[in-house]
């Protein structure tokens, strides 16, 4: 009896443990399954052809996600340009220069930044950043790709800081001591020895930040303007894959081609972030085994 109980407890925990694999595959399967009607009606080619997203056009609806992908990567890249240098600088400071006391103060504060709901950040972008940008660049509205990049950059900061700091502090102390013993200053050591040694971790941190930025919905939905046109600069309004789903899913009739094509957009988004996260993961494994 006792043994039976022990065994069933063990199996119970195992099933729970395996569930995360099931969920991940379940997400992929359901997205694929739900986008299949759209794929067969519209065709993969038409989705990725250059053109416009206009599924509700009365004559000849178009399903090209070209501009959406462009908008997504614009905001993703723009946010990285903001988050990576700033995040790595903060991480280097926290890991190598800050006193223990400073670290104990700043790290929880960074967690608070990570805890701000994306919809609140989007609201902040709408009411504070947008007017600022509109005055700065002398444009009618500041709701554009730049605004989205700034906000999503702020959002990605805690991820980049935390993981980059981890990478920097896990550089073996010997490297540092050897460099200092050879007469290098602390700054030279940081720049020429520690940061290069932590590079793969920093890249992984940037990839994870990128993954977060590309998947982010509410902030970009509120701050980028969501225009469907082909964007030519960061001062243009853009629509991302995520925002496109958020805008249209609520109003589309269930079961229509449009409905299923939104699942296809979700599938593309899922695959992009999946690949980015997987690369980050591989880099991590690599440097953990290397260290």
């Amino acid at each position: 009896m006792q043994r039976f109980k022990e065994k069933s407890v063990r199996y119970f925990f195992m099933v729970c443990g395996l569930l995360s694999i099931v969920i991940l595959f379940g997400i992929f399967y359901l997205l694929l399954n739900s986008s299949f009607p759209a794929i067969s009606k519209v065709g993969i080619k038409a989705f990725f052809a250059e053109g416009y997203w206009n599924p509700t056009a009365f004559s000849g609806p178009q399903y090209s996600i070209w501009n959406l992908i462009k908008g997504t990567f614009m905001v993703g890249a723009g946010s990285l340009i903001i988050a990576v240098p700033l995040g790595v600088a903060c991480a280097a400071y926290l890991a190598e220069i800050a006193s223990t006391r400073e670290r104990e103060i700043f790290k929880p504060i960074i967690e608070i930044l990570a805890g701000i709901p994306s919809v609140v950040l989007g609201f902040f972008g709408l009411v504070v950043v947008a007017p600022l940008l509109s005055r700065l660049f002398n444009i009618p509205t500041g709701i554009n790709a730049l605004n989205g990049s700034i906000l999503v950059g702020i959002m990605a900061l805690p991820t980049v800081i935390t993981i980059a700091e981890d990478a920097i502090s896990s550089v073996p102390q010997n490297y540092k001591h050897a460099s200092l013993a050879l007469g290098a200053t602390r700054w030279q050591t940081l720049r020429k020895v520690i940061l290069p040694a932590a590079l793969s971790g920093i890249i992984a941190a940037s990839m994870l930040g990128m993954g977060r930025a590309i998947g982010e919905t509410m902030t970009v939905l509120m701050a980028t303007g969501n225009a469907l046109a082909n964007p030519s600069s960061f001062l243009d309004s853009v629509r991302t894959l995520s925002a496109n789903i958020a805008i249209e899913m609520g109003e589309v009739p269930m079961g229509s081609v449009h409905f299923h094509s939104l699942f296809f957009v979700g599938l593309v988004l899922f695959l992009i972030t999946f690949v980015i996260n997987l690369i980050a993961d591989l880099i991590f494994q690599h440097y953990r085994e290397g260290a």
Partner: protein
Amino acid sequence: MLTKEENHHRRNVSEKFAFLSLRLSLFLVMFILGVILYDITAKGIGVLSWDFITKMPKTGMTEGGIFPAIVGTLYVTVLAALLAVPLGVASAIFLNEYATQGKITRLIRISLRNLAGVPSIVFGLFGVALFVQIMGFRASLLAAGLTLGLLTLPVTVTAAEEALKTVPKSFREGGLALGATKWQMIRTLVLPPAFPGMLTGVILGLARAAGETAPILFTGAAFFLPFLPNSPFSQFMALPYHLFIMATQHHNISAVRPIAYGTAFVLLAMVFLLNLGAIILRYRYRKRFQR
């Protein structure tokens, strides 16, 4: 050719300058966080009153309070916790106590890390496909709560595992040596000391769930409801969604701006208090087993 002293001096100056700029980057991040918190607080706190948090919205949501949104967010968060906490703790117990470290645990960990990177809007689509359509819950508290529960699962598992790892090995060995079965040992010797750590993780997960908007957009959140949800199958209002509507979708956006600020402030305060609770809890229990 520089003399030795000149060279030394130059190195010192450049080091000071570099460290200063690293420190300034950290201050810049703190400044950004400060501006966000200040803006929302300064303009939101004035709106706050007893009526604001306990009354229904009135006259097309241009007046009145946000009571149903607060209640909806509490309900949906609790539902998410009911799914994520038992499942997360059980997964963590499997990973840390039962599984031998090998291919399966590696696969589970990779799945968890990737699950953590799945965009929240994709979770929303998954919720629509699985809970709303296949399981037939329609757009409801239940569908939204389960979707949010799955979203927070990786956070809960990771936190629960961290907590289990802080329990010294000697506890387990002592229990087994006294003749306890594995499950008896885990239940009586491992789980109780790991409890505060797990609680911390749960609170952090809930804080995240409470602030999420994208997953509940089409799984149950409603624009406006004149009554409170009375069953798990009712639709509900939620704070983050309410903020989104007040900021972008309302027919008279400038008139409801104060309400939007008030909502943002209440949401931020809620998330902030949850985070603060978790940080304090962790700080108090962190040093328990360190000697």
